[in-house]
């Protein structure tokens, strides 16, 4: 089997399903829309607060990007579990390792590209409205945060993709992950600060801080998210390899 051919095929599959491709576009589009809503209106007022953190606050809109990234990772995989579509896919590419790796690689590449574009765009566009509070890419940690933010989005998409392969349902994964990201992580974060640092979203977002506090640095935090994503992908691989299609 030709790896390039299988990658190309996976890309066609993602592009041709509205839910997946829409989520991929939404990573960028929603973030930019939120940026344009928030920064011209309340950006400067927020920056005036005593606890303002110019660099981390610049990535406020990534909260929305990560929801889209998770949706993309989940739907890109779940389209295989609708009405036995997986059987068609595996009759074309019976090597399950190649099939899973190609799908993972396409999800990773697509979200990394969309994530980096989003991360840089939200930073640069948002800062254009910050007046006297404006920071640039030359700000210490800014370039690292932009690149790290893109990688973070890709990792969250892969985390969702792996979980979806394990649970075989985007609905299940989204109804676990999205409330988790929106609520649980915050609540747990406030109650048990130590352990919560290692949650996938908390850890990965360390890269967006100029001077991260706590046990994890910017890149080690991202590495922790990468471990979560890798664990989810491995669990997904176990399911794809073992189960009847």
């Amino acid at each position, binding site marked *: *089997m*030709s790896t390039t*051919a*299988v990658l*190309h*095929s*996976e890309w*066609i*599959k993602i*592009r*041709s*399903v*509205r*839910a997946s491709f829409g989520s991929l576009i939404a990573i960028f589009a929603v973030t930019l829309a939120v940026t344009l809503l928030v920064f011209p209106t309340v950006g400067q007022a927020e920056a005036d607060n005593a606890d303002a953190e110019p660099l981390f606050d610049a990535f406020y809109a990534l909260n929305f990007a990560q929801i889209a990234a998770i949706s993309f990772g989940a739907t890109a995989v779940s*389209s295989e579990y*609708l*009405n*036995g*579509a997986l*059987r*068609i896919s*595996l*009759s*074309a*590419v*019976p*090597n399950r390792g190649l099939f899973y790796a190609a799908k993972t690689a396409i999800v990773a590449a697509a979200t990394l590209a969309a994530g980096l574009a989003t991360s840089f765009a939200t930073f640069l566009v948002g800062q254009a409205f910050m007046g006297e509070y404006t920071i640039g890419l030359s700000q210490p940690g800014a370039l690292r945060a932009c690149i790290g933010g893109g990688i973070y989005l890709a990792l969250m998409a892969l985390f969702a993709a792996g979980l979806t392969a394990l649970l075989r349902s985007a609905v299940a994964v989204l109804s676990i992950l999205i409330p988790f990201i929106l609520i649980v992580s915050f609540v747990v974060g406030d109650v048990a600060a130590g352990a919560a640092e290692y949650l996938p979203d908390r850890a990965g977002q360390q890269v967006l801080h100029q001077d991260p506090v706590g046990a994890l640095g910017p890149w080690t935090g991202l590495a922790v998210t990468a471990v979560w994503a890798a664990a989810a992908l491995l669990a997904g691989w176990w399911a794809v390899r073992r189960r*009847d*299609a």
Partner: protein
Amino acid sequence: MTSIDISNLTKEYGTTRAVDRLTFTVEPGRVTGFLGPNGAGKSTTMRLALGLDRPTSGSATIGGRPYATIEEPLRHVGALLDAQAAHGSRTARNHLSALAVSNRIPARRVDEVLEETGLASVAGRRIKTFSLGMRQRLGIAAALLGDPQVVLLDEPSNGLDPEGIIWIRELLRRLARDGRTVLVSSHLMNETASFADHIVVLGRGRLLADTPMQDFLDAHSHARVRVRTTDPARLRAVLVRKGYEVAQSDDGRWTVDGAQAAEIGALAATEGIPIMELADEQASLEQAYLTLTADDTEFTAASPTTAQEA
């Protein structure tokens, strides 16, 4: 060699044995009908042959190799398992393109199979707008994409209109004439008899028959005569004396098993018994098949009347 070899194949789901020590070979150059009641294990056998499910024991190979080890398998084996499996959000063309690209099948084949299955005009429409018949055609298009030597179709005429059924029948016969290996499942005997050269019959996962179609026809469509007379008592007496088995049916007709109309006519004429109606009746093929599978039907209606769909 492009035969499908099923050897001592067994598949258990929990405690249910869906396929039970099954052994048969599907040879090239002919259409093999794969028959059995619902739940007999036909689809499971096909999934096992395609390496989608793992056998509990035994093996299934195509051209001597497990399916999963075939390079670019769509170029060698084409399968339609479930017409509903294509993702509704894709267009027919995108669905086929994704498959073609993965096996490096030239893009023109996508247009060729769309044309061949009569879907060219709806190639750009989303699959969710398709009727069952159109999905069935799309599934067949996908199976033919790589111009494969081996074709497996699970109930391909399901949902097709009469014209579609004739089309699929001719398609199957043509594929076999080309020397390809063609395995087609169905739960309808009459339909299968219209295209199959050979049949393999399953019941509860076990092999019930593996025989040329003609042999099955000869063995199971025995002669029977239907006769109506104004003097049933005398006719009956004469026939019984001659050793025929006579039975009266509900509508006042008599049926004589194992006889030809010509014999009965001649007999009645010599005896001077007036005959109002006399006809040869072939015992229904479907009936023979139902008898064969009767003990091995997984799901039966409570009433003993058998629903015949064809």
